[in-house]
């Protein structure tokens, strides 16, 4: 592979404390250096990055790829188009990732597609049924970066407790999407003003808080490392903050769209606002934002859930929940910077080195020897999201028509350009 220099870009690499104009040198798919030209760079290709940001490729903690096939090819291509170079796929695939074979299959297809690194969470219980724990040691050997029951319920607290103890045995992080199904029921919008008005079954805040409180208690008792993902309530932020203050080994993320929309956005029955957990109140959205700003919420993710048109073409309660969100992850996070919630270094950190650390992945850094997974952003580019032009097979987004400033214009994976904006 030819050597490469990304010339004159503004390098933002929080993992290495860099925020300055510098050249990035790449050899053999790895970072050879930032700044001064390393030895042995006599002949190399050059990409002019003047006026652009050069940052580590994004690491997305939750993206449904509709794996194994054919979703994985298009969805990783969509990731590349959004500057995302590492994706973590929850285990609720069909079939679920409860055996090493399924994990290997997804890894294989991911590698074959070659658009992004695909990481996989193993199932916490067999068939995600919540009753029998999986062969976690074998799943780890097959490359699973953690274990999770996705949004599927555990039969009871005892199974969760033992699953945590067993995961801890093999130093596996347990990834939890807190959701007490008995309280969620058939709810599909936040229980509050909008559910009351529309007569749509509501999901009370307690559905998240009861599950989160229980699992934090179990984390304390089992000593497992846990990551709580896709939080939707301001009070969840308080619970996480308390757990962290106590010294528990917990991290948390929020889906970027939760920082922008509320239940009021569901009031017109727009099926694209049907997500799980649901959009909650203004106070929740603001509480989540504050949690992100304060660092209680560590990472930002897409919670990508692409759906075909049919799945959203029905009355609201009968539609599939979820947003095709890869392609709005960075644009929405750039807005957080533009709205002064955080500075750009911090934003980049929450999308790169922090989620990489949660996955114990070497990605998310431009340090010498790191894989040359790079996202190049034009911070001034103004554009409008047209759902029909999305690369993902899912065009289900509530952000159609939104105007954004800043966009990924080129993505490199192992030093190779996997996306370039035409």
């Amino acid at each position, binding site marked *: 592979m030819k050597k490469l220099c990304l010339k004159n870009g503004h390098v933002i690499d929080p993992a290495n404390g860099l925020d300055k104009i510098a050249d990035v040198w790449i050899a053999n798919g790895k970072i050879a250096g930032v700044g001064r030209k390393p030895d042995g760079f006599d002949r190399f290709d050059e990409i002019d990055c003047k006026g652009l940001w050069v940052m580590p490729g994004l690491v997305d903690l939750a993206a449904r790829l509709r794996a194994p096939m054919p979703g994985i090819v298009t969805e990783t291509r969509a990731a590349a188009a959004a500057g995302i170079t590492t994706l973590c796929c929850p285990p609720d695939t069909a079939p679920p990732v409860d055996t090493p074979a399924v994990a290997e299959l997804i890894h294989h297809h991911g590698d074959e597609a070659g658009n992004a690194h695909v990481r996989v969470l193993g199932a916490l219980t067999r068939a995600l049924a919540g009753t029998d724990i999986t062969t976690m040691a074998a799943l780890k050997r097959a490359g699973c970066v953690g274990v999770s029951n996705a949004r599927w319920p555990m039969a009871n607290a005892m199974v969760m407790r033992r699953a945590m103890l067993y995961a801890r045995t093999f130093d596996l992080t347990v990834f939890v999407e807190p959701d007490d199904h008995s309280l969620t029921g058939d709810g599909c919008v936040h*229980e*509050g*003003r909008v*559910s*009351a*008005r*529309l*007569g*749509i*079954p*509501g999901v*009370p805040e307690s559905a998240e808080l009861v599950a989160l409180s229980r699992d934090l208690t179990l984390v304390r008792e089992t000593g497992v490392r846990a990551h709580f993902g896709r939080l939707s309530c301001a009070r969840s932020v308080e619970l996480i903050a308390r757990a962290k203050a106590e010294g528990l080994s917990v991290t948390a993320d929020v889906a970027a769209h939760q920082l922008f929309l509320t239940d009021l956005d569901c*009031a*017109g*029955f*727009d099926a694209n606002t049907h997500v799980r957990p649901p959009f909650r109140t203004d106070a929740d959205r603001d509480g989540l934002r504050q949690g992100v700003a304060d660092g209680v919420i560590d990472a930002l993710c897409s919670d990508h859930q692409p759906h075909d048109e*049919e799945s959203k*073409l*029905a*009355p*609201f*309660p*009968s539609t599939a929940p979820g947003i095709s969100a890869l392609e709005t992850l960075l644009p929405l996070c750039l807005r957080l910077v533009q709205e002064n919630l955080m500075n750009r270094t911090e934003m980049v950190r929450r999308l790169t080195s922090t989620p990489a650390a949660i996955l114990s992945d070497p990605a998310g850094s431009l340090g010498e020897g790191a894989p040359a997974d790079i996202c190049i952003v034009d911070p001034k580019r103004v554009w409008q999201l047209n759902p029909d032009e999305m690369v993902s097979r899912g065009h289900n987004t509530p952000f159609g028509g939104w105007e954004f400033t800043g966009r990924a214009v080129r993505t490199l994976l192992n030093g190779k350009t996997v996306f370039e904006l035409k």
Partner: protein
Amino acid sequence: MNGHDIQIGPDGKLHHFLSVEGLDREMLVSILDTAERFVDVGRQDVKKVPLLDGRTVMNLFFEASTRTLSTFELAAKRLSADVLNLHVSKSSTTKGESLVDTLKTLQAMHCDIFVIRHGDSGAADFIARHVEPHVSVINGGDGSHAHPTQAMLDAFTIRRHKPDFSKLAVAIVGDILHSRVARSEIRALNTLGVGELRVVAPHTLLPARVDSFGVQVFTDMDEGIADADVVIMLRLQEERMRGAYLPGHGEFFRMYGLTQERLKLAKPDALVMHPGPINRGIEIDSATADGPQSVILEQVSNGLAVRMAVMCMVLGVET
């Protein structure tokens, strides 16, 4: 993106009737006034007017219903429209044919009005957004969201007995949480300027944030119906006895059932209403349902007039 914008056509007239929400007082009064003109049609020997002659009304029911379906059917027939009743079981839309495909097929039959009854909240709104512009959609009840013709026939019945809404205290009693009738009634009666609107139910059957409805909330039946001019009892669905909403019929009737004894707490001339079908001995006792203050059967007859009015209005037919 609100469903209520699409109800009004570019000419400012009613094009669909999906929800009371979004319609102003003038529009609601005009529905009531139009309905007045149809009250007598049913009392004539020839119970037909030729207003919708040559038009086709399709009753598209995705949820079982006999009463609502028959009143819509009869209303259309009395207007001389051709009527087609179609029961679509939910399984036939989930298996294979999508709701939109079903709609396209039916649309090819050139209907003028779709009357929709569906188990999902938002279904009528969804269908209105996917029909061709010349088709009007009337909501015959969608999930727990809305049942606007029921709300209007109730308002109509009240007005015939007590014409000044502003002087009335109206109590709606029972399963507010799951009731599309209650949601539409609350909206309609508030828009029509009812003086005092109350809901009465145990907390398990009240929606979260019910306070945002512009109603007074009572959990005590005696307090809730005290000095009321109108008491509207809601049907209690059998399935509420499961799912831990209520312990059983007996206690519900004791705490929230309407009896002759309890009715004495309301004004002496208070109207007793119920959207039907009634569960005798569960939300209301027979003596009260059949008693002198009950206007339950009158509601049924008025339902025809209101539905005739709405059908004419959405098609822009002068009455």
